[in-house]
Protein backbone atom coordinates (compact mmCIF):
# COMPACT_ATOMS: atom_id res chain seq x y z
CA UNK A 1 0.00 0.00 0.00
CA UNK A 2 1.09 3.55 -0.65
CA UNK A 3 -0.28 6.94 0.43
CA UNK A 4 -3.22 8.49 -1.41
CA UNK A 5 -0.88 11.03 -2.98
CA UNK A 6 1.48 8.41 -4.42
CA UNK A 7 -1.43 6.24 -5.50
CA UNK A 8 -3.03 9.11 -7.39
CA UNK A 9 -0.01 10.35 -9.32
CA UNK A 10 2.47 7.46 -9.62
CA UNK A 11 2.55 4.37 -11.79
CA UNK A 12 2.63 2.34 -8.61
CA UNK A 13 3.20 -0.95 -10.43
CA UNK A 14 6.74 0.38 -11.12
CA UNK A 15 7.58 0.70 -7.41
CA UNK A 16 9.99 0.17 -5.71
CA UNK A 17 11.98 2.57 -7.88
CA UNK A 18 15.54 1.88 -9.05
CA UNK A 19 17.21 4.60 -6.97
CA UNK A 20 19.80 3.53 -4.38
CA UNK A 21 19.28 3.39 -0.65
CA UNK A 22 19.20 6.98 0.60
CA UNK A 23 19.22 8.59 -2.85
CA UNK A 24 17.34 11.88 -2.58
CA UNK A 25 15.62 11.69 -5.96
CA UNK A 26 12.45 10.16 -4.52
CA UNK A 27 12.05 13.08 -2.12
CA UNK A 28 12.27 15.66 -4.90
CA UNK A 29 9.85 13.72 -7.07
CA UNK A 30 7.24 13.43 -4.32
CA UNK A 31 7.58 17.17 -3.70
CA UNK A 32 6.85 17.93 -7.36
CA UNK A 33 3.76 15.75 -7.26
CA UNK A 34 2.60 17.32 -4.00
CA UNK A 35 2.89 20.77 -5.61
CA UNK A 36 0.77 19.61 -8.55
CA UNK A 37 -1.79 18.21 -6.10
CA UNK A 38 -1.86 21.46 -4.12
CA UNK A 39 -2.55 23.39 -7.32
CA UNK A 40 -5.42 21.02 -8.18
CA UNK A 41 -4.25 20.58 -11.77
CA UNK A 42 -5.78 17.99 -14.07
CA UNK A 43 -3.35 15.13 -14.69
CA UNK A 44 -3.95 15.25 -18.45
CA UNK A 45 -2.94 18.92 -18.58
CA UNK A 46 0.58 18.09 -17.43
CA UNK A 47 3.51 16.87 -19.46
CA UNK A 48 6.70 15.84 -17.67
CA UNK A 49 9.80 15.71 -19.85
CA UNK A 50 13.16 14.34 -18.70
CA UNK A 51 16.59 13.71 -20.20
CA UNK A 52 18.95 10.86 -19.27
CA UNK A 53 20.41 10.10 -15.86
CA UNK A 54 19.30 8.59 -12.56
CA UNK A 55 17.17 11.68 -11.92
CA UNK A 56 15.69 11.61 -15.40
CA UNK A 57 14.29 8.14 -14.69
CA UNK A 58 11.70 10.05 -12.63
CA UNK A 59 9.32 10.60 -15.54
CA UNK A 60 8.76 6.85 -15.88
CA UNK A 61 7.22 6.65 -12.41
CA UNK A 62 4.61 9.35 -13.00
CA UNK A 63 1.07 8.96 -14.26
CA UNK A 64 0.97 12.11 -16.42
CA UNK A 65 1.86 12.61 -20.05
CA UNK A 66 5.56 11.78 -19.79
CA UNK A 67 8.47 11.78 -22.20
CA UNK A 68 11.86 10.29 -21.36
CA UNK A 69 14.12 11.82 -23.99
CA UNK A 70 17.85 11.91 -24.80
CA UNK A 71 20.75 13.13 -22.69
CA UNK A 72 20.74 16.91 -22.31
CA UNK A 73 17.83 17.46 -24.68
CA UNK A 74 14.82 17.50 -22.36
CA UNK A 75 14.41 21.27 -22.78
CA UNK A 76 14.55 20.99 -26.56
CA UNK A 77 11.78 18.37 -26.56
CA UNK A 78 9.86 20.38 -23.98
CA UNK A 79 10.07 23.50 -26.17
CA UNK A 80 8.48 21.60 -29.05
CA UNK A 81 5.78 20.17 -26.80
CA UNK A 82 4.94 23.59 -25.34
CA UNK A 83 4.76 25.10 -28.83
CA UNK A 84 2.45 22.41 -30.15
CA UNK A 85 0.12 22.72 -27.16
CA UNK A 86 0.68 25.92 -25.16
CA UNK A 87 -2.13 24.92 -22.78
CA UNK A 88 -0.04 22.13 -21.29
CA UNK A 89 1.88 22.66 -18.07
CA UNK A 90 5.29 21.44 -19.17
CA UNK A 91 7.65 20.34 -16.40
CA UNK A 92 11.25 19.34 -17.10
CA UNK A 93 13.11 16.99 -14.77
CA UNK A 94 16.87 17.04 -15.30
CA UNK A 95 20.16 16.25 -13.54
CA UNK A 96 23.04 18.68 -13.05
CA UNK A 97 24.96 16.93 -15.83
CA UNK A 98 21.95 16.66 -18.09
CA UNK A 99 21.06 20.31 -17.58
CA UNK A 100 24.39 22.10 -17.31
CA UNK A 101 26.96 19.96 -19.17
CA UNK A 102 25.59 18.40 -22.37
CA UNK A 103 22.33 20.37 -22.06
CA UNK A 104 23.81 23.71 -21.05
CA UNK A 105 23.08 25.36 -24.37
CA UNK A 106 19.43 24.30 -24.31
CA UNK A 107 19.17 25.69 -20.81
CA UNK A 108 20.49 29.15 -21.62
CA UNK A 109 18.28 29.51 -24.68
CA UNK A 110 15.11 28.23 -23.02
CA UNK A 111 15.76 30.77 -20.26
CA UNK A 112 16.58 33.52 -22.76
CA UNK A 113 13.30 32.95 -24.58
CA UNK A 114 11.35 32.86 -21.34
CA UNK A 115 9.30 29.94 -22.57
CA UNK A 116 6.70 28.77 -20.06
CA UNK A 117 8.45 25.63 -18.82
CA UNK A 118 9.10 24.71 -15.19
CA UNK A 119 12.55 23.14 -14.92
CA UNK A 120 13.44 21.19 -11.78
CA UNK A 121 17.13 20.29 -11.52
CA UNK A 122 18.02 17.37 -9.28
CA UNK A 123 21.52 18.55 -8.34
CA UNK A 124 23.50 15.72 -6.73
CA UNK A 125 26.86 17.26 -7.74
CA UNK A 126 27.85 14.29 -9.92
CA UNK A 127 26.98 12.01 -12.84
CA UNK A 128 25.22 9.28 -10.88
CA UNK A 129 24.01 7.00 -13.62
CA UNK A 130 27.37 6.52 -15.32
CA UNK A 131 29.30 5.88 -12.11
CA UNK A 132 30.45 9.15 -10.59
CA UNK A 133 32.18 11.35 -13.15
CA UNK A 134 32.43 15.00 -12.06
CA UNK A 135 29.85 17.42 -13.45
CA UNK A 136 29.74 21.22 -13.86
CA UNK A 137 28.13 21.23 -10.40
CA UNK A 138 30.90 19.28 -8.64
CA UNK A 139 32.50 21.73 -6.21
CA UNK A 140 36.14 22.63 -6.96
CA UNK A 141 38.47 20.15 -5.31
CA UNK A 142 35.87 17.39 -4.93
CA UNK A 143 36.50 13.98 -6.41
CA UNK A 144 34.89 11.92 -9.12
CA UNK A 145 35.99 8.90 -11.15
CA UNK A 146 37.30 11.39 -13.74
CA UNK A 147 38.91 13.57 -11.06
CA UNK A 148 40.65 11.10 -8.74
CA UNK A 149 42.86 13.83 -7.23
CA UNK A 150 40.12 16.48 -7.12
CA UNK A 151 38.31 18.58 -9.69
CA UNK A 152 40.23 21.68 -10.83
CA UNK A 153 37.22 23.34 -12.52
CA UNK A 154 35.10 26.04 -10.91
CA UNK A 155 31.57 24.76 -10.47
CA UNK A 156 28.60 26.59 -11.93
CA UNK A 157 26.15 28.44 -9.75
CA UNK A 158 23.18 27.11 -11.71
CA UNK A 159 20.74 29.69 -10.36
CA UNK A 160 23.00 32.60 -11.33
CA UNK A 161 23.35 31.03 -14.76
CA UNK A 162 19.58 30.74 -15.24
CA UNK A 163 19.05 34.28 -13.96
CA UNK A 164 21.68 35.77 -16.24
CA UNK A 165 20.25 33.89 -19.21
CA UNK A 166 16.76 35.34 -18.68
CA UNK A 167 14.68 33.04 -16.44
CA UNK A 168 11.77 34.83 -14.79
CA UNK A 169 11.55 32.65 -11.65
CA UNK A 170 14.70 31.25 -10.00
CA UNK A 171 14.82 29.38 -6.71
CA UNK A 172 16.81 26.82 -4.76
CA UNK A 173 16.00 24.36 -2.02
CA UNK A 174 17.27 21.10 -0.50
CA UNK A 175 15.75 17.70 0.17
CA UNK A 176 15.95 18.48 3.90
CA UNK A 177 13.77 21.54 3.26
CA UNK A 178 11.39 19.56 1.06
CA UNK A 179 8.41 21.74 2.03
CA UNK A 180 10.24 24.56 0.30
CA UNK A 181 10.56 22.49 -2.89
CA UNK A 182 6.78 22.00 -2.87
CA UNK A 183 6.14 25.74 -2.53
CA UNK A 184 8.71 26.63 -5.18
CA UNK A 185 7.33 24.17 -7.71
CA UNK A 186 3.86 25.63 -7.13
CA UNK A 187 5.21 29.12 -7.78
CA UNK A 188 7.23 27.91 -10.74
CA UNK A 189 4.19 26.35 -12.40
CA UNK A 190 2.13 29.47 -11.72
CA UNK A 191 4.81 31.71 -13.26
CA UNK A 192 3.98 32.31 -16.92
CA UNK A 193 7.54 32.02 -18.20
CA UNK A 194 10.74 30.07 -17.66
CA UNK A 195 11.03 28.87 -14.07
CA UNK A 196 14.28 27.36 -12.81
CA UNK A 197 14.14 25.41 -9.56
CA UNK A 198 17.37 23.91 -8.28
CA UNK A 199 16.98 21.18 -5.68
CA UNK A 200 20.08 20.10 -3.80
CA UNK A 201 19.88 16.35 -3.39
CA UNK A 202 22.26 13.55 -2.47
CA UNK A 203 23.98 10.65 -4.23
CA UNK A 204 25.38 8.59 -1.34
CA UNK A 205 26.56 5.87 -3.74
CA UNK A 206 28.96 7.92 -5.87
CA UNK A 207 29.39 11.51 -4.75
CA UNK A 208 29.10 10.55 -1.10
CA UNK A 209 31.47 7.61 -1.25
CA UNK A 210 34.08 9.32 -3.42
CA UNK A 211 34.18 12.33 -1.14
CA UNK A 212 33.85 10.61 2.26
CA UNK A 213 30.57 12.36 2.99
CA UNK A 214 29.20 9.54 5.14
CA UNK A 215 25.81 7.89 4.75
CA UNK A 216 22.51 9.36 3.60
CA UNK A 217 21.68 10.74 7.05
CA UNK A 218 25.09 12.46 7.26
CA UNK A 219 24.59 13.95 3.82
CA UNK A 220 21.08 15.26 4.57
CA UNK A 221 22.41 16.70 7.85
CA UNK A 222 25.11 18.50 5.88
CA UNK A 223 22.47 20.03 3.58
CA UNK A 224 20.44 21.06 6.63
CA UNK A 225 23.47 22.77 8.19
CA UNK A 226 24.85 24.48 5.11
CA UNK A 227 21.66 25.87 3.57
CA UNK A 228 20.59 29.32 4.75
CA UNK A 229 17.53 31.26 3.74
CA UNK A 230 18.44 34.01 1.27
CA UNK A 231 17.34 36.84 3.58
CA UNK A 232 19.66 35.59 6.36
CA UNK A 233 22.41 34.74 3.86
CA UNK A 234 22.59 38.32 2.62
CA UNK A 235 23.38 39.52 6.14
CA UNK A 236 26.39 37.20 6.51
CA UNK A 237 29.99 38.35 6.10
CA UNK A 238 31.91 37.17 3.03
CA UNK A 239 33.79 34.75 5.25
CA UNK A 240 30.58 33.26 6.66
CA UNK A 241 29.07 32.99 3.20
CA UNK A 242 31.89 30.75 1.98
CA UNK A 243 30.52 27.56 3.50
CA UNK A 244 26.85 28.40 3.12
CA UNK A 245 24.37 27.97 0.28
CA UNK A 246 21.49 30.43 -0.10
CA UNK A 247 18.06 28.82 -0.53
CA UNK A 248 14.63 30.28 -1.17
CA UNK A 249 13.17 32.37 -3.98
CA UNK A 250 16.28 34.00 -5.39
CA UNK A 251 14.95 36.00 -8.30
CA UNK A 252 11.73 37.01 -10.04
CA UNK A 253 11.02 39.34 -12.92
CA UNK A 254 8.25 40.09 -15.38
CA UNK A 255 8.82 39.53 -19.08
CA UNK A 256 6.49 38.52 -21.91
CA UNK A 257 6.36 34.75 -22.46
CA UNK A 258 7.64 33.16 -25.67
CA UNK A 259 4.63 31.17 -26.98
CA UNK A 260 2.34 34.15 -26.30
CA UNK A 261 4.66 36.45 -28.22
CA UNK A 262 4.71 33.93 -31.04
CA UNK A 263 0.91 33.70 -31.12
CA UNK A 264 0.50 37.46 -31.34
CA UNK A 265 3.11 37.52 -34.10
CA UNK A 266 1.12 34.92 -36.06
CA UNK A 267 -1.94 37.21 -35.98
CA UNK A 268 0.01 39.71 -38.11
CA UNK A 269 0.05 37.29 -41.04
Amino acid sequence: MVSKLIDKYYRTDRLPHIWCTGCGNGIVLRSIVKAIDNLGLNKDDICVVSGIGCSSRASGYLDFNTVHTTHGRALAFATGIKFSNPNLHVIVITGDGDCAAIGGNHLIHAARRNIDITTVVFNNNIYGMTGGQYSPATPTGDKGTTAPYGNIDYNFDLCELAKAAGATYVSRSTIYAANMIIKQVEEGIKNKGFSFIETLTICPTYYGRKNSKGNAVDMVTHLKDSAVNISAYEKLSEEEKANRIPIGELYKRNRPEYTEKYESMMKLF
Partner: protein
Amino acid sequence: MKEIKNDKLIIEKNLCKGCGICVAFCPKNVLEIKDKKVSIRDLDSCIQCGLCELRCPDYAIYLGGK
Protein backbone atom coordinates in the same frame (compact mmCIF):
# COMPACT_ATOMS: atom_id res chain seq x y z
CA MET B 1 -2.11 17.22 26.95
CA LYS B 2 -2.18 14.77 24.07
CA GLU B 3 -3.46 15.83 20.70
CA ILE B 4 -6.34 13.95 19.16
CA LYS B 5 -4.92 11.50 16.66
CA ASN B 6 -6.85 10.77 13.53
CA ASP B 7 -4.16 9.76 11.03
CA LYS B 8 -2.20 6.68 11.91
CA LEU B 9 1.35 6.04 10.81
CA ILE B 10 1.58 3.35 8.16
CA ILE B 11 4.72 1.49 7.15
CA GLU B 12 5.16 -0.42 3.91
CA LYS B 13 8.19 -2.56 4.63
CA ASN B 14 8.43 -3.85 1.06
CA LEU B 15 9.30 -0.34 -0.11
CA CYS B 16 11.68 0.59 2.74
CA LYS B 17 15.40 0.49 1.88
CA GLY B 18 16.50 1.23 5.43
CA CYS B 19 18.25 4.55 4.74
CA GLY B 20 17.37 5.88 8.21
CA ILE B 21 16.40 9.38 7.05
CA CYS B 22 12.94 9.20 8.65
CA VAL B 23 14.46 7.90 11.90
CA ALA B 24 17.12 10.63 12.09
CA PHE B 25 14.78 13.56 11.51
CA CYS B 26 11.67 12.44 13.41
CA PRO B 27 11.32 15.19 16.05
CA LYS B 28 9.83 12.77 18.59
CA ASN B 29 12.07 9.74 18.18
CA VAL B 30 9.15 7.54 17.16
CA LEU B 31 11.04 5.34 14.71
CA GLU B 32 13.97 2.96 14.62
CA ILE B 33 15.70 0.64 12.16
CA LYS B 34 15.21 -3.05 12.93
CA ASP B 35 16.54 -5.80 10.65
CA LYS B 36 17.50 -3.12 8.08
CA LYS B 37 13.94 -1.77 7.81
CA VAL B 38 12.03 1.00 9.53
CA SER B 39 9.98 0.03 12.54
CA ILE B 40 7.76 1.95 14.98
CA ARG B 41 9.39 2.28 18.37
CA ASP B 42 6.88 4.47 20.18
CA LEU B 43 3.64 5.27 18.36
CA ASP B 44 2.21 7.15 21.34
CA SER B 45 4.82 9.90 20.91
CA CYS B 46 3.89 10.51 17.25
CA ILE B 47 2.58 14.05 16.72
CA GLN B 48 1.63 13.36 13.10
CA CYS B 49 3.86 16.08 11.76
CA GLY B 50 4.34 14.11 8.53
CA LEU B 51 8.06 14.83 8.27
CA CYS B 52 8.87 11.11 7.80
CA GLU B 53 6.47 10.97 4.86
CA LEU B 54 7.86 14.24 3.46
CA ARG B 55 11.45 12.95 3.44
CA CYS B 56 11.13 9.22 2.81
CA PRO B 57 12.73 8.74 -0.63
CA ASP B 58 10.91 5.44 -1.07
CA TYR B 59 7.28 6.20 -0.06
CA ALA B 60 7.50 3.52 2.61
CA ILE B 61 6.06 5.52 5.50
CA TYR B 62 3.01 7.79 5.61
CA LEU B 63 0.13 9.10 7.63
CA GLY B 64 -3.26 7.96 6.54
CA GLY B 65 -4.40 4.90 8.45
CA LYS B 66 -7.36 5.06 10.78
